[in-house]
């Protein structure tokens, strides 16, 4: 009976998940039956061999794929605004939406006025250069991204600003043909980039 209990408890003794009481019981049994220690050693050896089998992969395995999924399902600003107003339900929804729209427009105008005096954040000063060939990426940068950082990033990916920013902060970047997927990945990995998507072209001026 005691051997049966010992065998039952031993795996959990080895992986250190036994209660104090059971642990003490196993240790008493081992003291009284030294021959039982061979079984303990076997389990211990087995455990260490299994843990040596830990696959040698980086902690970031698959991370880029997940981040792509996450970027893909991020709601657009329009969706966020819609969700925000959705929270108010159907109570004077139209009036509230109208009021909110006016408030948002006021805020945008106010921000533009402030930005005009802020040399460090003159993202709008980026001049679009005409690039005839190559696929187009639509890129959104973090609100606090600096012009110098954006310029540097575009230079490193051999991208050219073809349009933007629009009212939603969309920049249109022309990139070398055949490299758009790799460049999109490179851009997504940069902390100043919030979203990247392939775009058919620069939309008409808003």
């Amino acid at each position, binding site marked *: 009976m005691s051997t049966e209990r010992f065998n039952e408890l031993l795996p959990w003794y080895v992986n250190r998940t036994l209660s104090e009481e059971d642990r003490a019981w196993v240790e008493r049994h081992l003291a009284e039956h030294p021959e039982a220690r*061979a079984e303990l*050693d076997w389990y211990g050896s*087995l455990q260490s061999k299994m843990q040596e089998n830990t696959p040698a992969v980086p902690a970031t395995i698959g991370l880029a794929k997940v981040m792509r999924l996450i970027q893909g399902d991020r709601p657009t600003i329009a969706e966020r605004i819609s969700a925000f107003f959705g929270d108010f339900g159907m109570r004077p929804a139209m009036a509230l939406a109208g009021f909110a729209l006016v408030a948002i427009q006021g805020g945008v105008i106010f921000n533009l006025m402030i930005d005009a005096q802020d040399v460090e954040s003159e993202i709008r000063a980026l001049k679009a250069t005409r690039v005839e060939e190559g696929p187009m990426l639509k890129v959104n940068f973090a609100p606090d991204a600096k012009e110098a950082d954006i310029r540097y990033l575009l230079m490193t990916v051999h991208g050219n600003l073809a349009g933007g920013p629009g009212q939603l902060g969309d920049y249109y970047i022309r990139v070398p043909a055949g490299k758009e997927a790799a460049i999109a990945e490179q851009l997504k990995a940069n902390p100043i980039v919030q979203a990247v998507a392939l775009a058919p072209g620069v939309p008409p001026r808003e």
Partner: protein
Amino acid sequence: MDNDRVRELLARIGREDQAAFRELYKAFSRKVYAYALNMLNDHARAEEIVVDTMYQVWRYPARFRGDSQFSTWLIGIARNKALMAYRARRPDESHADLDDIAETEAADTPDGFATLAQKQRREGVQHCMGKLSDEHRECMHLVFFEGMSLAEVADVQRVPENTVKTRLFHARQKIKKCLELLLQREGGGSLSGATA
């Protein structure tokens, strides 16, 4: 990483904090990968399981209620994904030779244990683990790799604790017998290469 830190990160993930997600990801990805690899024996599929599992965490962070270890909860998600992947795999990929070692009684003499403990190599253990049934291999992995308690293993495998004990007992017998056969086959207890 303890559960408090995990909960803190999950709360931030609920606010779409990608930095928190990256931290959580890096803390647990290898654990999920090791589990999936043990189940599927396929590196590419194991990576897919990691991606699917962690993406689910990103989408539904509030589903972890904290009534178990986070890693146990995570392995539970990975298990469902692995089972789906397992069902989808080709029939010829299954472990058809499980019965090779299934019913043979392992030597239980103390000397036998000592010899095996001394000589079982990493490759030998890996080989013999691969000979186990999926349930037995999973059980061994959860106990000796993940370090889960009896209750946690039962929870992950969704079986009574007694079933876990039985699975563990049979897995032990099969592994022991398999290692003995390896020792015999490779030269009367002298396995080629380095010994443990």
